[in-house]
C-alpha cells in the first residue's frame, strides 16, 4: 500500500507496507547523499517551516539538511516554551503559518499531542519532530532504516531498548515500527522508568540487563537525563550505570555481531561508555547520516499526497466549470 498520510504525527497505526515504502524511498535518497552533488529538485517550490519549541541540535539540523537537499524553501524558528507563554504561542504560530502559505511544518514541542493540535488548526502538513513523551517518528524511522541496512528484513529479529522508557518518545515510536515490521522487542530499565502497562504493546519487559541483551540482534540505548535523579526516579546516576550502563564488559557477553545504537546525544559514562560508543559494534554515526535520508523520504511522500490532493481538486474544479 502506498503512503497516504498527509501528516506524520506518529508511527502508531502505521502499517508494515507503509513503513516499507518509506524505508525503500529513503534508500534511494540515501544514495543521493553519497553523490558529489547532494541535491535534487524534488521539493522545488514547496515551503517548509521548522518550528522548534524545545532545544534540539541534531534533529533540527537533520531536517534542515533534508529540506535543502530536496530544494525546498525553508524557514526555521526556535524558542523555548519558558520564554513565551505556553499555548498562546502555538495557536498564534499556527495562524501565522496559515497566513504565510506554508506547505509543511516540522514541529518539535514539549507537550504531547502538540503536533496533533497543530494539524487540526492548519491546512499545512505536520511532521512530528518529537512531542513530549509521546512520539518521535522520524527518529524511529532512521533507527529502522539503520537496522534494516545492517540486518536485512527485521522479521523475527530481536531488538532491546534500554533506559528511561517512561520519558522516552523514541522508545514508543521504535516499538510501533519494530512490531509492525515483525521484530521481537524487549524493554529494559529500572522499574521507575517503565511506563504503565507497556507490556500491552506486545513487548517483553525485564529489569535484568543480561537477560535483555545477551541474545539481542540490536541494543538501542536511550539517553538518561541527568535531572531524573532530582525527580526522584533514581537514587543516583552511579547506581543506574552499575545496573544498566553498557560497557565493554557487558558487550562482551552479548552476541558478537550485536548492533549498538543510541539516538544521541550520549551521556558518555552514564548509559554508555565511550569505548563502546566508538567501537565497531556501534552504528551511532550511521544513524545520523540515515536520519537525513529518511526525513527526505517522508517529506517527499507527504508532498506527493498533497500534490495528488491538489490534482483532484483541480479535476473537480474542471468538472464544475
Amino acid at each position, binding site marked *: 500500500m502506498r503512503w497516504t498520510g498527509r501528516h506524520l504525527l506518529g508511527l*502508531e497505526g502505521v502499517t508494515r507496507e507503509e513503513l516499507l515504502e518509506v524505508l525503500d524511498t529513503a534508500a534511494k535518497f540515501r544514495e543521493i547523499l553519497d553523490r558529489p552533488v547532494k541535491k535534487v529538485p524534488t521539493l522545488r517550490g514547496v515551503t517548509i517551516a521548522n518550528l522548534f519549541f524545545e532545544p534540539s541540535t541534531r534533529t533540527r539540523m537533520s531536517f534542515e539538511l533534508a529540506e535543502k537537499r530536496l530544494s525546498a524553501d525553508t524557514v526555521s524558528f526556535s524558542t523555548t516554551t519558558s520564554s513565551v507563554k*505556553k499555548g498562546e504561542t502555538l*495557536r498564534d504560530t499556527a495562524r501565522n503559518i496559515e497566513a504565510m502559505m506554508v506547505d509543511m511544518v516540522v514541529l518539535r514541542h514539549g*507537550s504531547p*499531542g502538540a503536533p496533533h*493540535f497543530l494539524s487540526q488548526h492548519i491546512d499545512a502538513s505536520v511532521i512530528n519532530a518529537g512531542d513530549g513523551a509521546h512520539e518521535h517518528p522520524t527518529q524511529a524511522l532512521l533507527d529502522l532504516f539503520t537496522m534494516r541496512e545492517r540486518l536485512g528484513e527485521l522479521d523475527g529479529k530481536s531488538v532491546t531498548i534500554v533506559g528511561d522508557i517512561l520519558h522516552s518518545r523514541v522508545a*514508543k515510536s521504535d516499538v510501533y515500527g519494530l512490531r509492525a515490521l515483525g521484530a521481537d522487542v524487549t524493554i529494559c530499565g529500572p522499574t521507575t522508568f517503565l*511506563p504503565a*502497562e507497556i507490556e*500491552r504493546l506486545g513487548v517483553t519487559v525485564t529489569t535484568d540487563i543480561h537477560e535483555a541483551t545477551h541474545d539481542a540482534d540490536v541494543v538501542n540505548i536511550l539517553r538518561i537525563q541527568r535531572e531524573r535523579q532530582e525527580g526522584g526516579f533514581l537514587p543516583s546516576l552511579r547506581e543506574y550505570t552499575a545496573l544498566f550502563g553498557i560497557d565493554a564488559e557487558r558487550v562482551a557477553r552479548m552476541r558478537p555481531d550485536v548492533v549498538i545504537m543510541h539516538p544521541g546525544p550520549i551521556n558518555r559514562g552514564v548509559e554508555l561508555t565511550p569505548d563502546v560508543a566508538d567501537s565497531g559494534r556501534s552504528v551511532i554515526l550511521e544513524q545520523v547520516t540515515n536520519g537525513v535520508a529518511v526525513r527526505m523520504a517522508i517529506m517527499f511522500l507527504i508532498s506527493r499526497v498533497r500534490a495528488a490532493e491538489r490534482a483532484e481538486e483541480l479535476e473537480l474544479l474542471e468538472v464544475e466549470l
Partner: protein
Amino acid sequence: MRKLLVRGGHVVDPATRTDEPLDLLIVDGVVAETGLGISVGEDARIVDAEGSVVTPGLVDMHVHLREPGREDEETIESGSRAAAHGGVTAVAAMPNTEPAIDSASWVEFVRTHESPIEVYPIAAITKGREGRNLTEMAELAGAGAVAFSDDGSPVANSCVMRRALEYSAMVERPIISHSEDLDLSGSGVMNEGLASTLAGLRPIPAAAEEVAVARDIILAGMTGARLHIAHVSTAGSVELVRRAKSDGIAVTCETCPHYFTLTDDDVRSYDTNLRVSPPLRTASDVAAIKVGLADGTIDAIASDHAPHSLEEKQVEFDAAPPGMIGLETLLPLTLTQLVQPGTVTLERAIELLSTDPASILGIEHGSLAPGALADVTIFDTDWAWEISESWFLSKSRNSPFTGRTVRGRVTHTISRGEIVFEETAFDAGHARGKGEREPDELPLRI
C-alpha cells in the same frame, strides 16, 4: 393566589415513593396537591405534561459559578440560567473563587444574589483555601453555607483535616472533600494506564485519589463527622466508600456524568475538554461507578460544572486547566448512560439527582409532597437530539459532549412555582403526535 397545574405527566418522586400518572397543583410556590383529574379555574396556568416525566427539581451539589473573580467564564446569573436550562433548581456553589468564599460577607453575596434558581454557597474549610487555619464555620453556617470544602486544593495536612471534621460536626454541616494526594498526582494530567503510556501524557495514578479517600474516611470514622467525597472516579474509591458505609461511618459521595460516560482512552484525542480533575479513568472504573450508583454506594450525581474560556482551553493538553461544563448535560447523560440501558431505574436516577443530594446538604428540595417547595423538572425521556455548541446557555462552551446524540430533554423547569425555563423548540416541532419528532430509534453514540 397564583395557581399552576402540571397536567397529565408521569410523576416520579422518590421522596413520596410516587411513580404514576398524576396531575400536580402548585399554589403560591408550594405543592398543593397531586392527584388524578385535578380541576382548576380560568385563573390557573396549565402546563401540559402528557407523555412527559415530572420530578422534583434537580439538585446539583457541585458546581463552579466563577463569581467573584472570573465573571468572563461564568456568573451566578449565567450559571443559574444554565442550571434552569438543564432542569436544575438548586445548586451548591464551590468556594474556589477569587477571592475564596471564606467569610460571611462572601457567603451572603452568593446566597442573596438574584437568580432564577436557588444557589447555596459552600464555604471554604480553611482561610483562603490554604489548608492551614479553619474558617469561622459557625458564622459561615449562620450566613447560609450548606457545607465546607477546599475543593481543588484538598487539605493536605491530616491534622488540619481532623480538626475541620471535628469542628464542622459541631456546626452540623458536612465536609466535602476533593480527595487527592497531590504528591502522588504530581504534575500529571491524565489517568495512569495504557492510555497515558500511549498518549505520552504525564500520569496520575488511581492511588492519588484512593489514598486520600481512605485517609478522609478514617478521619471521619475517628471524629464521627459527616464526610462527603466529591467526584468519586475510581473502582477503588467506590469500594472504600462501600466498606466505610457498612462500617457505619457517616460518609456519602457523588460522581459526575463524565465518570460513567467517558474513559481515559478518549483522552488520546488530546481534546482539552477531556482534561478534568480527577482524570477520566478506565472502562473497568466506569463499570464500578455504575455498580456503585445502582447499589447505593454512590449517593449523588453532580456535574462539577467547571466553565473555562476558549482561550484557556484552546492550548496544548497539558497546558489547559482541568474542568468541563456540565449543568446542562447532567440529566440527558444520566438518562442516556444509566436509565436507558437499565443500569438504574428512573426513580433511582431522580434520587441521585435530587432527593439524596438535597438531604446530604440539608436543603428543602427533592420532594413533591404537599407543602414542599414547588421546584419541578419536566422532561421528555424519548426525545433524541444532538448536543450543539450554540445550545448551551453557560457563558463557557468547554463541553466534550458537543456533537453527541443523547436521549431525554428538559422541557420545563419550575422554581418555587415559577416557570424559569420552557423549551420553545418543544412547542415548535416536537410536541407529541403533531410535530416532526426525532425518531426514537435514532442510534445512540455511546
